[in-house]
């Protein structure tokens, strides 16, 4: 067993609490409690942070359910979704210029980060109006340049996430035609840790979950401390309290551990992962060797599985969150 751990996080509304938890000493407090050290590292490039985690440079990393499946799990790194932090409830959206109906997206060029959750959202949106991806041309556009790209006047359709969504919607003649609140619970933000490390060091899981839910309880309150916490999170993500609260409004945060446990144990989660797996498979994200969407096995609380149970690489674990819910940490 080791006692020094590194986790990576990147700037996004649902992950800003990690920054606050690290800055305010909550992480240290919990790490001390379990006799370990946890270094919380900010990485601005989201994909790079997952790649680094997959390559073994970090013991844990924040990511979405889809990226957890397609990067570490597909890369053979057995990973555990330790904390189900939130799901996107409007934070991701399809936006059109000069049009207000989703069906008008047909034959347009759509700017988005290819192979990301935006891409998934687009596929789900198209399906909802009976279209397929063939109906549009996808232009891979980096998230950092999305807003200025749209502001330049060229693009007419984008799929992206907050805070970019609100920046783009603030421009004239734009309309949100589909968002993640129409597919609730499908775009999930997780804290993922290496399964082997976690099994060898349950203390890591306990400390992280403990720190997370202490932070949740502070920021969820509308008192002085809660506002201060959210202000700090807003500042660190480049906006202010109001901007951050707006982003929170379209995010379904699981402030209470019990909510997260319930979500992890729900019937919906395996179905969602199946949907995500088949999307990923269609786009070659599971690797050249993958014969079918179920090639990579996913485990859910309660001995439920999706895909090949012999190749389990992603495990949703409600155990640590349950401890938090039980006040056993």
């Amino acid at each position, binding site marked *: 067993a080791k006692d020094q751990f590194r986790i990576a996080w990147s700037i996004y509304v649902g992950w800003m609490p990690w920054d606050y938890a690290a800055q305010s000493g909550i992480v240290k407090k919990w790490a001390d409690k379990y006799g370990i050290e946890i270094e919380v590292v900010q990485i601005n490039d989201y994909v790079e942070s997952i790649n680094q985690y997959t*390559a073994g440079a970090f013991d844990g990393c924040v990511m979405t359910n889809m990226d957890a499946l397609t990067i570490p799990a597909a890369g053979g790194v057995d990973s555990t979704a330790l904390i189900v932090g939130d799901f996107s409830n409007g934070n991701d959206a399809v936006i059109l210029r000069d049009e207000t109906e989703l069906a008008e997206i047909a034959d347009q060029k759509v700017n988005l980060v*290819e192979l990301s959750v935006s891409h998934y959202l687009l596929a789900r949106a198209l399906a909802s109006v009976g279209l397929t991806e063939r109906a549009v041309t996808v232009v891979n556009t980096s998230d950092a340049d999305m807003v200025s790209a749209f502001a330049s006047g*060229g693009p007419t359709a984008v799929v992206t996430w907050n805070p970019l969504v609100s920046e783009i919607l603030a421009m004239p003649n734009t309309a949100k035609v589909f968002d993640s609140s129409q597919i609730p619970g499908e775009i999930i933000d997780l804290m993922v840790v290496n399964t082997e490390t976690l099994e060898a060091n349950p203390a890591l899981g306990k400390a992280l979950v403990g720190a997370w839910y202490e932070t949740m309880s502070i920021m969820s309150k509308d008192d002085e401390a809660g506002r201060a916490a959210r202000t700090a999170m807003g500042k660190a993500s480049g906006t202010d309290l109001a901007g951050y609260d707006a982003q929170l409004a379209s995010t379904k945060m699981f402030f209470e551990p019990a909510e997260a446990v319930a979500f992890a144990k729900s019937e919906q989660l395996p179905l969602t992962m199946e949907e995500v797996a088949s999307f990923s498979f269609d786009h070659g994200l599971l690797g*050249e060797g993958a014969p079918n969407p179920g090639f990579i096995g996913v485990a859910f609380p309660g001995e439920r599985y999706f895909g090949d149970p012999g190749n389990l690489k992603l495990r949703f674990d409600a155990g640590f969150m349950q401890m938090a819910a039980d006040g056993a940490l």
Partner: protein
Amino acid sequence: MKRLINQRPGPVSTAALALLPFVVLALVYLLASDARLAENPNDKLLPSFTTLAESFVRLTSVPSQRTGEILLWQDTGASLRRLAQGVGISAAIGLILGVALGAIPLIRSGFAPFVAVLSLIPPMAVLPVLFIVFGLGEVSKVVLIIVGITPFIVRDLQQRVQELPRELIIKAQTLGANSWQIVLRVILPQVVPRLIDAVRLSLGTAWLFLISAEAIAATEGLGYRIFLVRRYLAMDVILPYVVWITILAYLTDFLLKQISRRAFPWYHNGEPGR
């Protein structure tokens, strides 16, 4: 025993010496890759040589589902087109501005500080402004390359023009040359091989900007593919692409050198400018 400084290897040992670092690099990779794969057979960071070879074959033979074209060729075509346009335009601007700045003191006074300042602005930081002016299409990618390398070429050529022996400019004047003739017959022809040198030096940066541009908004191109598959850490695609880009860059460089050798024997015969 000759001084180290006078020892020249024969052709065979030259080749052997030149190969050595590459062999060492390949060995180091092999060892590192084996070590990682022994721990996790699905590790994607350092794929084995077999995986790389398979992936390369696939990239060069299996047509893409989307367009029916073979991915690598399609990407290569798109990237080389952009690169050629960007570098070509940069070279033209560089030649004209470099000669004007180097040869004509009035222009130098007016624009040299401006060009110097322009060359210091990090292009990535002003991308949004470039987008408004040039849109998001092919043009903006070519423009990013131009913005990225032209200041260097201009300043380098200006320097080279100013380094031409003053005697030559005076001599030309005593032969009755006017300013235009001096530029046309004395400065330009002496500067063209130096332009090729400058272009060769800036090719690396040009590739850098090309790849960055393709990472911003594109549907094909070598840089696009690398950034796309980076999303699932497909090093088995990235590494062949990197090797391929390196080969392309090397060939371009080699080609330019040969053209310069053929076209400007006087420049390569002994030292320049004497």
